[in-house]
């Protein structure tokens, strides 16, 4: 896997005016932390894609791809290859991208093959112009390097093939031929995925491709960071069990946050609190955070970021028009909500109960009928908080609705009580058509500071 952090572009260098050795020398003097990368032409139609990472002026990782043969050499082998051109004027440009030390750490974790173990030898050989130390530099022809690299790659592929399931006779595995091919492939993948964006897992996954790595954070720092963001998207990924947990949080208008999780849990969790609780609950200690511009999400992935809210708005219009919703439409409406765990906060509940007035206490033919009544009441009594409880076979459900929007929902089955909206929806699905006793309360808005 190549380096994952994108970093911040600082400047580009024309290699026809200086040498790689001089550039490296300067970066060392500056105690540079970041990546030097770009494509250089070494003649005979041969281009090298170079990526070299520095940490406090030390070269810590290096990766070189010989584009015409589609081979990548990493670590010490890549350095051996670069020695041949370090002090020559060649055609090509290199860009200097600044990274934080945490970003470099992450890159090293993801691209561990590229790590340079013996940095002292390497700096002496690469960092000094050839004219001064040419005699000490080991002479290796590029063809020899290519030959060695080919052998290594062949061995690697052979061992991977053994791990994978056997292929059909005649079936070929297509490998990208050049960097351009690889980039084109990546672009195709992005386009392809953008059309299948309905799955939040793939959504979250590709977000990491267009995001800018911010830093490694602890869960509480992550929460503070999210609170500071007013509008944008944050993608995160964090180790989980033996896999990885990925998520995407879109901040549209504070405090309305939308969270989508998570590969590794094989389900999606909506609602920022649930996302954070899940992360904390899984004992995650470090979160890798990416920042994404919403316009990038829209442009690159053709995502209608507002679409989440749109469907809910459409259903809300139906409510306002006095229409009674059927089971599926109602569930869709509730699923589209972003709720807060207010109903699991006893202090808040005390305030609600002590300040509310019972509007209706009756038996309903179904939970769906009760919910229709509750939400409709909220649309009719604008600027009041409506609280409803419903007892149905084997469960009880509570909801707080404000201006037609479900602010909090909780359920209780046996001794289990939760404000998790996904679980609430599951409980509702199982009992939606069953008869229920429902009580609807009205709460003065000033009794609920959360709604001010």
């Amino acid at each position: 896997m190549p380096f994952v952090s994108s970093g911040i572009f600082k400047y580009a260098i024309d290699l026809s005016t200086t040498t790689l050795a001089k550039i490296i020398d300067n970066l060392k003097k500056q105690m540079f932390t970041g990546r030097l990368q770009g494509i250089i032409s070494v003649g005979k139609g041969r281009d090298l894609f170079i990526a070299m990472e520095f940490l406090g002026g030390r070269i810590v990782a290096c990766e070189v791809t010989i584009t015409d043969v589609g081979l990548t050499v990493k670590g010490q082998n890549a350095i051996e290859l670069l020695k041949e051109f370090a002090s020559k004027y060649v055609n090509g440009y290199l860009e200097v991208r600044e990274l934080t030390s945490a970003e470099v750490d992450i890159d090293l974790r993801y691209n561990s093959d590229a790590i340079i173990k013996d940095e002292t030898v390497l700096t002496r050989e690469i960092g000094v112009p050839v004219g001064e130390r040419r005699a000490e530099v080991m002479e290796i022809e590029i063809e020899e390097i290519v030959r060695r690299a080919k052998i290594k790659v062949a061995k690697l592929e052979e061992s991977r093939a053994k791990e994978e399931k056997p292929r059909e006779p005649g079936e070929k595995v297509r490998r990208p031929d050049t960097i351009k091919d690889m980039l084109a492939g990546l672009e195709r993948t992005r386009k392809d995925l953008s059309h299948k964006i309905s799955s939040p897992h793939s959504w979250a996954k590709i977000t990491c491709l267009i995001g800018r790595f911010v830093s490694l954070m602890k869960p509480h720092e992550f929460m503070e960071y999210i609170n500071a963001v007013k509008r944008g998207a944050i993608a995160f990924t964090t180790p989980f069990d033996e896999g990885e947990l990925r998520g995407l949080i879109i901040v549209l208008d504070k405090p309305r946050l939308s969270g989508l999780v998570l590969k590794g849990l094989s389900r999606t969790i909506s609602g920022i609190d649930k996302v954070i609780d899940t992360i904390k609950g899984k004992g995650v200690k470090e979160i890798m955070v990416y920042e994404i511009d919403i316009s990038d999400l829209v442009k690159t992935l053709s995502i209608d970021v507002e679409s989440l809210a749109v469907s809910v708005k459409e259903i809300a219009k139906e409510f306002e028009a006095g229409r009674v919703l059927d089971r599926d439409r109602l569930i869709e409406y509730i699923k589209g909500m972003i709720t807060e765990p207010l109903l699991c906060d006893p202090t808040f509940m005390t305030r609600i109960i002590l300040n509310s007035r019972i509007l209706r206490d009756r038996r309903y033919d179904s939970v769906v009928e009760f919910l229709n009544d509750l939400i409709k009441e909220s649309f009719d009594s604008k600027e009041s908080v409506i609280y409803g409880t419903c007892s149905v076979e084997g469960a009880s459900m509570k909801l707080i609705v404000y201006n037609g929007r479900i602010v909090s929902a909780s359920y209780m089955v046996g001794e289990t009580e939760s404000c998790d909206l996904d679980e609430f929806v599951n409980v509702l699905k199982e009992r939606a058509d069953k008869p229920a006793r429902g009580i609807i309360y009205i709460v003065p808005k000033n009794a609920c500071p959360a709604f001010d």
Partner: protein
Amino acid sequence: MSAIQEFGSIGEFLKKIEEDLDSLKKIMGTFIRRLEEARVKAENEKKLAEIFSKFGQEVKIEVKPIEIHGTKIYVNPPAGIEYSVLESVIDKLNRRVQALQALHKGLEPLLSIGGGVRVTVIYEEGIPKTIILRY
């Protein structure tokens, strides 16, 4: 209930407050469920009384408890009594939760003191009333 407890650090004490808060919230949750049930019953009783009064029938819901050394005993009380008893208990619990939450927030800056501080806490009615720090 009064008690004295010692902690090895501010962090340890804050953790104890969080544990106390969790357990208080659980207790409150149970009481709130009972309160909601009692409230609905009380409202129905009230409505019934109103309906009877329209027919000229006065329904008295007053019940005097038997007191034994300050403890009240009710025999088959109406739901309204249960409601007001629970309401007062929940109110006390709620005050305790709020006091602990405020204390937790107020003590957070002291976390920067780090280790080497011994904390002695004197509790009165479950709430820390005096905190003694020793280096």
